[in-house]
């Protein structure tokens, strides 16, 4: 499952490295990570897209919140949200195909932002899937360059920073029933018996 998390972090050097490092050290997969300024110069906002099951997502949220320079963590698992990705794409555009491309861009509510002798640059924003679809459509014309920002997201409605919070409150509810045999956390990768035995003793 893909999940979107946002993290408000202190705006200082090392925070990005810390977050990125934590993801790699714990074997979590980041699909994208976007950092940008907020209305307050002291804080930045990260939007992180991860592929994870529920249990891993819970750990990601908690491990993020544990970082001292991370101020607030939200995930949008149970919250309606708007997400956007921004793309600049430079296409080969001979005079003959130019109007087709412009038409396609218009259909996708994109804008042509630069025109060269044999190229066009289109700016397009929206949900990731829409951008993906556009890329596939224009691929035959020849993509010269492509840049995407990665996803940013925000909860819908009036609440500031809605979403599931970092304290893992879902954990504060006792589970009603559980299987007789303990379910281990699905491992990232199950080590083989041989590997287990090869683990240095201590």
């Amino acid at each position, binding site marked *: 499952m893909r999940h979107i998390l946002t993290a*408000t*972090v*202190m*705006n*200082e*050097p*090392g*925070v*990005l*490295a*810390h977050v990125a*490092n*934590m993801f790699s*050290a714990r074997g979590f997969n980041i699909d994208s990570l976007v*950092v940008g300024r*907020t209305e*307050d*110069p*002291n*804080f*930045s906002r990260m939007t992180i897209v991860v592929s994870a099951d529920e*249990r891993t997502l*819970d*750990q990601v949220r*908690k*491990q993020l*919140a*544990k*970082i*001292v*320079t*991370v*101020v*607030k963590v939200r995930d949008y698992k149970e919250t309606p949200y708007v997400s956007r990705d921004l793309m600049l794409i430079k296409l080969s555009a001979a005079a003959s195909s130019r109007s087709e491309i412009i038409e396609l861009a218009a259909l996708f509510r994109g804008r042509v932002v630069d025109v060269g002798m044999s190229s066009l640059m289109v700016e397009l924003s929206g949900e990731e899937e829409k951008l993906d679809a556009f890329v596939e459509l224009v691929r035959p014309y020849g993509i010269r360059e492509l840049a995407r920002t990665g996803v940013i997201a925000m909860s819908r409605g009036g*609440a*500031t*920073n809605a979403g599931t919070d970092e*304290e*893992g409150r879902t*954990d*504060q509810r*006792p*589970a009603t029933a*559980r299987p*007789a*045999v*303990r*379910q*281990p*956390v699905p491992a990232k990768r199950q080590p083989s*018996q041989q590997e*287990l*035995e*090869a*683990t*240095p*003793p*201590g």
Partner: protein
Amino acid sequence: MSTSTSPIGAGANASAAKTTSKSNATNAIGAPPAHRTGSIVVENAAKATESIANGLPVLGRPTGKTDRFNGMTGAQILLQMLLEHGVTDAFGYPGGAILPTFDQLYEKQLNFILVRHEQGAGHMADGYARATGKPGIVIVTSGPGATNTVTPLATAYMDSIPMIVFSGQVRSYLIGNDAFQEADVTGITRPVTKRNYLVKNVRDLPRIINEAFIIATTGRPGPVLVDLPVDVTTGKIEDAVDDTPYLPGYKIYKAGHSKMVKAAADLINASERPVLYVGGGVILSQAWPHVREIARKGNIPTTTTLLGLGAFDENSPLSLHMLGMHGSAYANYAVQESDCLIAVGARFDDRVTGNLKLFAPKAKIVHVDIDPSSISKNVKVDVPVVGDACLCLEEMLGYIEPRPRSSWLSQVARWKVSFPFAYKDDTELSKPQAIIEAINKVTGGKAVFTTGVGQHQMWAAQFVRWSVPRSMITSGGLGTMGFGLPAAIGAQVGRPNELVIDIDGDASYIMTAMELATMSQYNLPVKVAILNNRFQGMVRQWQQLFYKGRFSHSEMVNPDFAAMAESFGIRGLRCHRKQDLIQCVEEMVNHPGPCVVDFLCETDENVYPMVASGKGLHEMELGIVGCAAPNSDREMGTLA
């Protein structure tokens, strides 16, 4: 991202600050500098401004500007603030980039211990912290001085030990230029510190020092590193600065959620076969009186992890001793049979659980921990209680109902009689276990013990009868060989009038043995008992069991340890005959100064019980354990 130096809007936090928290987490904004100094409750957490942001974090900050640092250099400020934070001892080694700070140490307002290797300084500070509960302080130079502290930082981080390393750094305008003895120390240490800082401006120093103490000592404690460029320690503060800690992303968990505490107690009261599983967190939060009381009141058999040893009195019939890979058979059986496992300040480490799929299959699990990320990390928890173990258990104690649980207790007692820790005393040389039993007998287990890593560490855990908190100082999470000697030195500095014994392995010991010079210079009366099996014994055991006896590079050719100690001006003894064992231990313990004893012992001895990788706790190999006790006066056989 760039650092902003613009002033922060002060009005913006008004609405956030008004919101009272329903959660027990408290943002440590404006918390006064303080650390645990023996009292059970964390004071600074209580005093911290009770505000949690609803929505965006608190934007403004109290303007606690003070002019008390006017005219002082960074180095002067550092010394003064260390003293204000109650620091009495520090460990370290000088070098160019930290000389301004060392100049301040010349007047000896601090008891400074000059080590022989910065790794030693780190482990000493760690041992000091574990022995006293106060944060350990390290002061080292830039580049190699700082990188030498990485292993101690990682060791302290894994075991949640409060420690602060102050490292020198090249002048801030040289950073990034590959200057002499420059290293990206904050980059290198980020994964092994709870928080680290590169101080860019002397005006930030007072605030950062306050924050470092709060972060190191509160919540789940851990190491902090503060990197100090030369121009920061030599730079002067000219006018008022704000030294108020500013930690909007830091939460300190205190009391547990009342509903959860009650739910946990209900589960425990309803259980027939409960087991308390106690970890190092109980020592850190000083919750051992509550653990003991809950066990007594509810008649709950109690097992500890390696780091939890001493939290429970092992002389109690309720004690199951240590659990896990080399834990007691009865602790492991009890966990597997339990219908309610109460984990307190423990993290379900793989060395404790064995195969997770087979772990405690019949038990509902209560987990009390201050770190929310520990909960349900490895094992799904039924009742989580997030908070300081001491406060959580104090509340829980009120709900725990007295229960006889006699059939469970008699089952446990039968296991204890049938499967005591054991060994066969059938070789010409002493068995390593016999040496530890002798030390236990002579000291009554009443000493501060440190260990290296390996078989001797496990035998120390098994054969010393632990009853006093902070008496077992060992590297659990990282398993750092070479920890024992410097940790013992640090413990001795922190508890100068107590008997401190390093039970070490020959291979572990020699990794940091240069600290004998430190011991000698400060005449610290540490006792070192080397269990000399002329092998990396634990590696030998694994090679014997899993690599067809191909002992690849695990045999040690050692120096004459006694003569080596003597060359440092330290009393060195040899104990090569088993009939001299008790007498040698007595001689060691009674020697007024530092003393190293080379206890020659049997090589081919393995640690049992042993839960092989991939096996459940109940599938442990018992080895000699469970056979009739060959040596009738061993106290293990009579415990129950």
